[in-house]
């Protein structure tokens, strides 16, 4: 095991170009059950933690940029971010507990590619983009087009996620709902992030598909202003957009039905606000 510990992004991108080293940010995913992950002991690592230029929260006229090392706790304790993007704080506070929030990063959450990633769902609903760099170029990809499939994403072996950009927009309604098996320290069994402004609704679903994803059919149904008589009226659209499965944490039937209920009541409550 070789560990590269660059202090600048440029050095890190050279390592990325020259070595098959796993990028490590806060370590909260990679280190789980570490003593038993013996294959991972035989790999090389690119430790990003010492690259201070990736540790920033920067505002510009039209975007908020979170450096790749921005943690959940950084956002929870940033009142300005909380005021502008309340769902980021809502989601961050429901990820693990403070010990995880202190190390876990938004960019790491994106790179891990879990279909249950709470951080990804709120970033996606806010229309965030992923800023990606390699030794010779920079590019930016909308988060909602970043994933191809389960843990498959638009990131080449020589690239790194260096920042996340979130457009400055105002919303009339914003809601993040996470259904976990307990109130803290839980992984989402089903979740939704919802925003609306004058031009329509955006809905992002968690834990009901191979990736976090937008739900265009649901969005269209709500945006059309169609009256919902009961949660079940959402089921056809849910079935069109997502494909929940049975796993250790829950069942497909539960996920589908609960998705309809959390969406129905959230939309109803927001519409009366």
């Amino acid at each position, binding site marked *: 095991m070789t560990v590269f510990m660059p202090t600048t992004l440029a050095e890190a991108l050279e390592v990325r170009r020259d070595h098959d080293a796993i990028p490590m940010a806060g370590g909260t995913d990679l280190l789980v059950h570490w003593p038993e992950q013996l294959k991972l002991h035989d790999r090389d690592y690119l430790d990003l933690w010492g690259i201070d230029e990736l540790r920033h929260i920067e505002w510009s006229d039209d975007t908020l940029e979170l450096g790749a090392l921005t943690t959940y706790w950084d956002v929870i304790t940033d009142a300005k971010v909380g005021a502008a993007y309340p769902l980021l704080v809502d989601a961050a506070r429901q990820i693990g507990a403070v010990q995880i929030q202190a190390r876990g990063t938004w960019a790491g959450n994106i790179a891990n590619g879990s279909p249950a990633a709470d951080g990804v769902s709120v970033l996606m609903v806010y229309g965030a983009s992923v800023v990606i760099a390699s030794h010779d170029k920079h590019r930016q990809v909308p988060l909602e087009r970043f994933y191809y499939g389960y843990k498959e994403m638009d990131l080449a072996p020589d690239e790194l996620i260096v920042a996340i950009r979130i457009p400055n927009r105002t919303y009339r309604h914003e809601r993040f709902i996470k259904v976990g098996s307990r109130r803290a320290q839980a992984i989402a069994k089903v979740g939704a992030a919802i925003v609306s402004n004058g031009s329509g609704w955006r809905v992002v679903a968690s834990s009901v598909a191979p990736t976090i994803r937008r739900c265009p059919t649901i969005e269209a149904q709500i945006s059309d202003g169609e009256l919902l008589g009961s949660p079940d009226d959402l089921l056809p659209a849910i079935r069109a957009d997502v494909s929940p499965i049975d796993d250790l944490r829950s069942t497909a039937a539960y996920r589908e039905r*609960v998705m309809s*209920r959390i969406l129905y009541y959230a939309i109803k409550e927001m519409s009366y606000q």
Partner: protein
Amino acid sequence: MDRIEGLAKLTGAERYVDDLPLDGTLWGMTVRSPVPRGRITGVHFGSGVDWNEFVVVDHHDIPGDNTVLLIETDQPLLAGDYVRHVEEPVALIAHRSREMVRRAIREIEVTVDPDPPIFDFTAEPTDDQIQHGSDNALKRIDVIKGDVDAALAGAAHVVEGEYRTGSQEHVYLENQGMIAWEEDGVLMIKGSLQCPFYVLKAAVRALARESDRVRIVQAPTGGGFGGKEEYPSMIALHAALLALKAEQPVRIIYDRGEDMRATTKRHPSLVRHRTGVDSDGRLVAQDIDVALDGGAYVTLSPVVLSRGVIHAAGPYACANVRIRGRAMLTNSPPHGAFRGFGAPQTHFANERHMDVVAATIGIDPDEFRRRNLIVDGQTTATGQTITDGTDRVALLDHALELSSYRERQSEHQALNASHPYLRRGIGMAAFHHGAGFTGSGEVMLASELELAGLADGRIEVLSANIEMGQGTLTVFTKLVCDRLGLAPEQVVIADADTGRVPDSGPTVASRTTMVVGRLVERACDDLRRQLGLDDSDSGDRVTRAIIDWHIEHNKPLVGHAKYKPPPGIEWDEATYTGDAYATYGWATYVAEVEVDLRTYTARVTDFVAVQDVGTVLHETLARGQIQGGVVQAIGWALTEECAWNNGVMQNNQLTNYIIPTSDDVPPIRVSFVENPFAHGPRGAKGLGELPMDGPAPAIANAVARAIDADPHEIPLTPEHLMDLLSNGR
């Protein structure tokens, strides 16, 4: 008095087994069966590892009988030619590098010619699934009182119900662990355990060593809850086999995944009730069938079944009771001791059923209980006459009052009628728990305890009872201080080391404070008697006398006490009749829940626990036991579910096996009704297990009220609640 070892724990200074120095020790690990049942055809060691670097042990290395001695001898220490559950130990390896052991263990393959396993303890086994006796029953126990069939035939109402509970993992925060080494010809075994003499007896049998050539020493133990009652014998002997072969100290420390996959859990249960009630709402017949899943070996299932069966009819007076119990073999890892020991399962069924019966016959559940709770002079299912002076109806009413039961009910009605998706309910459970070993168990244990008066006048308590968080050290210290008028600094508690202490019995069954604590008091009296002091002599007079005695005799003065049953206790093991326990704790718990119909999630929003556990010796410790037990039971009731697949626990991680966090539970409101027990120390009764019994039925009853449905099974996970609401099951 603060907890004796509290500061050491709060500053990280307490040394648990995995905290002991590493010098010269090897790390041991266990090779386990990959399949639930079959004949072992080979243990293959991969070619990529230099096995000469490793110490390797299999059943051939066992000097004595290949068994983990407990009630029976059917469980092998290392499977020889046959395995009966996944994760069953087959071989052991050790190396000085922990990572090397972890790498090497993956290169060992156990091949097995499979036989058909059985996992459903409620199903009739097919011929080729029978592995114990003629029908896989590890134990059957019947309790018969009166004439149930006649009473049912004449009853105004007969109500039936069927109730299930799942297995539960202990989740002691410190995983299992042991170190073994040889010292001057004596085999030393030190680790996390509840019962040093169980380990000693098992070691003598399997290692074919005299008991004076083995010493078992308890290390500070990070939680047990029964999970470190019987399984530590297995790990201790594994470490010993490796250490004897390596001629070096060996430590085996399970990680959480191995601990959850391989060690014991609470017995799953299926309990059926058929209950006859007269037109006044009084119980006339209780016909109860109790089935437990024992797992692959006998282990403690007979005694878990015994306690479950004895508590199955609840704290009620009924002239006609028939309880038929059986513990069945399955090819799951053996289920074992867990706080409550069978009683939480049967209390869940009985208290849930009481609400079902009350609703069926149209009486309020509190009133139905009031009419049937045992009053002094009446008898339990085993015919034990209760005469302890506790007013169980008043206790119930106290719990209802503290929980504002009636006011909450009307608030809930209003909310439930108007809220789009929130539903609230309040429910209760009345129950009891026998303290100490069942029946003649304490007489057979014949526990002994010693107090030594040291040269400096301090008193050392020598007992086999251990501290695992429940407060033994503090309670014993306090009892000596109170009895002899001493300060806490003047009392020391010896390590539970079988080479030094007498066998005061295992630290289980809510017996330590009540039974062994009484021995502490009597040993104090014995010291005073030997010193020629009066009962009124205390404090400095006692200390001075001990010092003087030491000067005169040049050795410590030893005070003794040996268990004596309270007078008048009679138990007939053959007919399962008589005084099942010397005394009982009595309780009524009330739970308030909120169910969210968007997510089908039930949450406990308020909890009141009222109990009579005799005199409360230490308010903070006693309250902590109740609160901790209640929260452990809230987990069992709502979220804790072992996901089994072919006898393998799939969710053997704390991410996927869901115990409550601080944010999941409300403050637990505790109230004690103190009715002293004449034969307990200063009037104390056992209390450790009691709080595990009541919460699950109280919560299920509250959920039933909230959503107007009848849950018959726990845990009430959201997925189960969704099924219940959509399909009525």
